[in-house]
């Protein structure tokens, strides 16, 4: 029986699969970063926290745009099987 997915160290797709890992991590990163302000109780100012939240927002957008544009080449695979996400 053939292996279910690509070999872990398959050269051609290794970087692509790591990019997908990056995309998967984006929401986790966002959740953690946007929960941080809750830790600072009492003293913080709305203005400062607002700047922090928008800063995180911009970082997330830029990262996501970078990763997605790198991935798009791979997403051109016609049948979509190249996007199988049972990762190794």
């Amino acid at each position, binding site marked *: 029986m053939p292996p279910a997915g690509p070999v872990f160290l398959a050269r051609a797709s290794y970087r692509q699969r790591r990019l997908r890992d990056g995309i998967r991590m984006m929401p986790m990163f966002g959740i953690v970063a946007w929960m941080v302000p809750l830790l*600072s109780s009492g003293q913080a*100012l709305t203005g400062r*926290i607002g700047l922090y939240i928008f800063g995180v927002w911009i970082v997330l957008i830029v990262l996501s745009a970078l990763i997605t544009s790198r991935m798009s080449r791979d997403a051109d695979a016609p049948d979509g099987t190249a996007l199988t996400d049972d990762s190794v």
Partner: protein
Amino acid sequence: MSVGINLIVVVSLVYVAFLFVIAFMAERSAARGENAWLQSPLIYTLSLSIYCTAWTFYGAVGYAARSGLEFVTIYLGPTLVLLGWWWILRRLVRIGRAQRITSIADLISSRFGKSTALGMIVTLMAVVAATPYIALQLQSVTLSFAVFAQQDNLTWATDDLNAAAIWVAVGLAIFTVIFGTRNLDANERHSGIVIAIAAEAIVKLFALVAVGAFVVWGLAGGPQATLDLIDASPISDWQQSGGRWATLIFLSAAAFICLPRMFQVLVVENTNERNLGVASWAFPLYLMAMSLFVLPIAVVGLNIMPANTNPDLFVLTIPLSQGQEGLAMLSFLGGFSSATSMVIVATIALATMVSNHIVAPIWLNARTEGASISGDVRKVIVLARRLSVAGILALGYLYFRLSGGGAALAAIGLVSFSGAVQVLPALIGGIFWRASTRIGAACGLMTGFAVWLWTLFLPSFGVDAALSSSVMMNGPFGIGWLRPQALFGIEGIDPLVHGLVWSILLNAAAFFVGSVLSFPTPLERLQGAQFVNVFEHSNNAQTWSGNAARAEDLLIMAQRIIGPNEAQQLFQTESTKQGKQGYLPDVTPDFVNGLEKELAGSVGAATAHAMIGQLTEGATVSVEDLIAVADEAAQIVEYSNQLEAKSAEQDRTARALREANKKLTALSVQKDAFLSQISHELRTPMTSIRSFSEILRDGGMADQSHARFAGIIHDEAVRLTRLLDDLLDLAVLENGQVTLHQQTGSLDDLIDRSIAASGVPTGTMQIIKTGGAAEISVTSDLDRLAQVFINLITNARKYCAAVRPTLTIAVEAKRHELTIDFIDNGDGIPADDHAVIFEKFARLTDEGKAGSAGLGLAICREIMERIGGTITYLPGQGGAAFRVTLPATAFDEIPQSSSLLAGQ
């Protein structure tokens, strides 16, 4: 002179007209197939912006003025969902495309064994949750009208507000009906609507950014000064409740997936999976831009506006108070866009759900004949959809009236979100957990919905409105642990957090326990595997086995749902693929599956499945089919695919050979029968001619008898001649020796002439002509064509056994051909005989009734072949039906002017 209410009304009318025009143009270019730009990632991203409703356009500033930064959670949730598109959205879009999903109710229903009941539950929940939200949009538009009325020093009374609301609702209903329910699109995509909401997305972003820029640089004096203002304002302290912060982010994230209108733009209107990749960063950018200036506007508003001003309308009132009337008008259009785009898409999504999951199943059940009766389902569905649009908007308006507008309504936005997200456990469970079942989903949905009604929806009407204050304080019948805002006696939680956490937790628990304790039906297991492993096998699994349905029944049903032309085309294509002729392919499982998906695109999975189920008489999934989709059997599938590919070609050849052989055998039998019959035909008149001429020869009779016998001899001779003429005619046609006399004439005249010449006595058969025969001129051998028509009309008179025979002659000019259908209301021709009726030795009924030798249709076929057309039997029309087809070169539409002249 300030910007008054009249100017605002004119501006909004012009704006709406502009939307009509671009929606119309988009539909036109989509119809022409020039839709590449309509399907671009940019349009897709902009269409997602219906998430930002009037509640967020106006209300976010009010929210910020009251609670500081908390407003931003409403945008953070969707941002996280889009950033994590690889997890959920990509899966949903793939499933939506593979299964032809039409709405979120369809997704749940389809996943859990195409269950009609689940579709109904989700639809009802969605309507209840969305109604207050639609009311909220109507309120925001009327309030903004009222602001401009004040500029004219008019103070609007409640009546004026109500009148404005009803006009807005009627206008929205018209727009939605025109562009949202024009036809039953196989994919439920609406290019006109999508382009209109994309345009509105730009308008509202531009408006909010313009007001924000004016406030920051025009009023506050730059970014640093704005920050100082924020630090000096009443909302400067960060006093955020952690529970609310996390809950609201979760709520808005879940709502972004579960709201019917978001599902519509995210999944149903998605034309290309890759658009999702671009939207994953572009839409968060849009959201960030929408929320960037909210806090500055709120703070500046609190600073410069009088204390009693409604902060919800700061976006409008700040520019007005500074004399910036152009900006105020832009801001008004932004709010107007936010409200209208949300209402339009929400109404379409809900109307699709109501018509597919409530009206269609009830209508099907109410007809005892089941799915195979006559009538057009399409008309019912489209009508139901239009009525639903009107009904949903009417509900929204009613809610607006009953709630009396005001602050009570403003609080309902989050409550409405909480109702919509009750679908989340079933949705997430359905696409990630194969073992989740229909029972579990129903338990979860109903539990969640009930808890939501009790803890959030009913209390939202205010104290003593829906629930009395004693129930709120002491619980129903004094049962303390059932208090709506302190379930199980746990007090002191924020009401929204309380209601949402309990409803989702109990919902998920009921879903899990119900799934674990019940057992999925075969269809659920199959659909479960299809949904959960959508990336492993996007190919279609077989759901139907057996050959119980007859192709003709399926054709009749398909014609009523996707339209006669499309259905005939579909069946003919399949037939050709199988190596057969005509409109009726073999009913293979593949074909039935394909047909079901096609129908599901119009009426939803559950209804399509039920309709096909009625015809295939319960032949459902076989064990082999289940094995074929299971992961463990992937290699079996692979192997059998290869075998199948090899044998498909052989199959086709064998089927063609079998058909030919069957035809030959049937013909040989018929030929023998015909020979004995033709001898009989020739002998009968010969015998009487011989005997009567003998009598005449012997002589010795009265003159009267003499004349009578001579008459009989003459009649029989005429009959003989006619028979021989027919045979000769056929021989000439078959040998291609015939010369054609090309003429041009009106099709209508030709048909009338044929009816007159066929000698149908008045009163015996009713003949109805439909279609535009009068506007078509035909260039062909008109005498020969008339001969075909006469033959078909005479046949209908002879063989139509109905009590009140009716013949319908339907003319339709298509792009490449002209079809003329002759349809009677008799018993039709059995499917087994379709193959032989055009053969010259064929005759179906006994000879005594017909009085001819059965050459008519054979002659017709030869004539049509000579003049470049065809004649075919058209099954599934209720009686015998023949279709005469002429090529595009043989007909022309008569220009309007010349037909007028001809009329004079």
